[in-house]
């Protein structure tokens, strides 16, 4: 194992981890306000599909902006269903995942892509219309720092979204724990009826955090596709949204701890792939593939068991719709 190999594993660890980090940041806010967004995976897929199409049509910037809008829309739908209509968050969340998986699955058909791309940008050349991959976001090497052995590659040789997600985690931690906005969000998730009695608009807070979680999930999907693995296939995110859900619990709903958790998950996954290349630890490739679903079952058990919830300090009203008692 050469130094280059280690450097590469570390760099990929952070890049892989960023997928989880972005998705979990929004989810942390939603869950802190008491809403479980189980549609993360579907929203990521929509983000990935959107970024795929728009990168081809107009380039990276448009891809990121449109995936944010698509995420906000998915979040808005979810918020109407679970916050305003007070439907079961687990059921609706899974439905959102299916919706996202189904819609994004359309882009697997070449004719669909071709038609859509021509509508988006009629001047696209013929050869772009049918390709299954997009251009990756450029890496930005930070001068000098990126030359430091081992950690240079790990921390200072990434695309913009990676740096952005890192800084954002710290900012979102600060907002959640040190500002009035954060206090309001946390209080709504702990005791919405108390927040209501102090004049907080519980529904508005929850709508906003759910939309935010949609935006971040979609952005995570876009990052995954154009920043990490720009080759399209159906279900391209492969259950990573579900892993991000488990990460939120592991991070005990703190954006700071989510950084560590995300890179840990990223590291495990990267290492696993690398070892397979060496023919080492040659477990069945299905092992990784089933991991998201096992984690999801565990997440659901944790979130729906009152005693576990209390012990690990989950937001007290997580998963419970709020209605003013009459």
């Amino acid at each position: 194992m050469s130094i280059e190999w280690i450097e590469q594993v570390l760099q990929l660890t952070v890049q892989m981890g960023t997928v989880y980090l972005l998705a979990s940041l929004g989810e942390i806010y939603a869950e802190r306000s008491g809403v479980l967004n189980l549609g993360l995976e579907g929203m990521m897929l929509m983000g990935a599909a959107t970024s795929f199409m728009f990168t081809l049509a107009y380039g990276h910037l448009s891809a990121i902006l449109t995936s944010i809008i698509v995420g906000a829309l998915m979040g808005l739908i979810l918020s109407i269903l679970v916050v305003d209509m007070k439907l079961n968050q687990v059921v609706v969340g899974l439905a959102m995942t299916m919706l996202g998986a189904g819609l994004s699955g359309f882009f697997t058909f070449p004719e669909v892509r071709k038609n859509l791309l021509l509508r988006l940008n009629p001047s696209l050349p013929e050869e772009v219309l049918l390709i299954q991959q997009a251009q990756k976001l450029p890496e930005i090497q930070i001068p000098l720092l990126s030359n430091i052995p081992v950690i240079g590659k790990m921390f200072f040789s990434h695309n913009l979204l990676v740096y952005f997600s890192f800084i954002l985690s710290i900012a979102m931690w600060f907002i959640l724990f040190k500002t009035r906005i954060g206090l309001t969000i946390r209080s709504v998730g702990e005791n919405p009826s108390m927040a209501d009695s102090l004049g907080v608009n519980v529904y508005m807070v929850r709508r906003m955090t759910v939309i935010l979680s949609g935006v971040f999930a979609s952005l995570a999907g876009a990052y995954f596709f154009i920043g990490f693995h720009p080759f399209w296939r159906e279900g391209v995110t492969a259950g990573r949204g579900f892993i991000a859900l488990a990460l939120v619990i592991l991070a005990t709903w703190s954006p700071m701890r989510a950084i560590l958790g995300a890179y840990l998950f990223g590291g495990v996954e990267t290492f696993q792939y690398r070892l397979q290349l060496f023919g080492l630890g040659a477990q069945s490739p299905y092992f990784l593939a089933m991991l998201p679903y096992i984690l999801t079952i565990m997440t659901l058990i944790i979130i729906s068991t009152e005693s576990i919830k209390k012990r690990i300090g989950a937001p007290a009203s997580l998963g419970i719709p709020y209605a003013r008692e009459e």
Partner: protein
Amino acid sequence: MEELVSLRGIIKHFPGVIANDNVSFTLRKGEIHALLGENGAGKTTLMNILYGLYRPDIGEIYVEGRKVEINSPKDAITLGIGMVHQNFKLIPSHTVLENIILGLKKSGLVIKSRKIGEEIKKLAESYGWRINPNAYVWQLTAGEKQQVELLKILYRDAKILILDEPTSVLTPQECRILLQALRRMAKEGKGIIFITHKLDEVFAISDRVTVMRKGRVLVTKETSETNMSELAQYMVGRPVIFTIEKKESRPSGEAITIKNLKAFNDKGVLALKDVNLKVMKNEIVGIIGVTGNGQQELVEVIAGLRKASGGSLIVDGVNIINSSPEKIIELGIAYIPPEPLRYGIAPNLTVLDNLFMKAYRYKPYSNGVIVNWKKIYNKAEELIREFQIVPENPYAKARSLSGGNLQRLILARELSGLIGEKIPRLIVAAYPTKGLDVGATEFVHKTLIEYSRKGSGILFVSEDIEEALMISDRVAVMHDGKIVRVFRPGEVDIDKIGLMMAGVEIAFK
């Protein structure tokens, strides 16, 4: 005197009920105004209207002489109205400071913890309270939590304070501190509305009193110009007898012996640390204590609903600890759960179904497979008559019954000896009168006493010290998962009981 609040002609309907029927109410500057009535009289509804949680169907609200629209608590807060709800609205995992400033703009976008902490401390000290703004709410006693609730309002410069049964979770000492502080606030010119159903509190604290019954205001009087029995008559609609006739108990044989009982609560904390208690047949043992000191866990362990982690429950020389509820029912242990609507009945099933929810699998009501509905129906009619359940229709949905009738239904199911046609050897009654009106409360008391004199042992858990002293033959004080002391009513005065409930060790003979 200056009027702070005037509610005029308030009408509020809920599906099927009129909660407030043309209610008018005034609050003056500097007064403590008691709002008295039984549960369901419409006091809380009226105050929720003033606080913007509900909107009146008809009626006008004036604050300091100006007509106002209050559409949400936010509007109420802006008008200087603050409310302490019946159950604490606090977040245990947040600090005192965080609980107080929630929703306040003046706390700054980035919260100015140090400055606000000082302000809160000073405010608390001006009422003689010592509160650490950075303490977590879960670390506080009930009395301190009540103070945080008040600070929440005072920090918003409220002039009109609504307190909904603020003493229900306090020890007598904590009560006294609260009442002193309220006096102080009234002297500063604030108006205080004190909702209660306890007559003695009216006389301990209020300047004026308004009595409500069935959604209407019956009378408003200067407190000094009325007396207990007059108010009680208004409240209930008939003269009330304050004492209960009770024959001397003649304990005979053990109903159950609890030894070194230990159990965890839902949070995984040891809630029963070492409970030792004996309940004899033919006697009522009352358990009092501040809510949350293990009473709930104790009754659940006896009923087989919670696993004990140690100790024993001995019935006829056999340890029945951690037996299944079925086994416990067959031993003749009856359980009257707290909050009947949540734990005691299936609301969408009929009265008949609910009455036979235990007995349906025993003879003669079934042969183990097929239920004999004819027998059940006849017996149900009999029980409805005996326990005076209204409506008298066995096919009425349990959901449609009032709180008092639900409790009668549960008593009928638990006590009537449907299983084996005998009376229970032990009746575990957890807060059986909580939330009931005076009539239903009387019925529960009478029924429990009657069964205790017929031979049942009764474990009676109550939040109300006076109630427990009145109907029990022996009283056990519970604190922090242990029985602190057992005595006969009258042996210990109420101040000492309060100290015991608060966990203060006292030596006495």
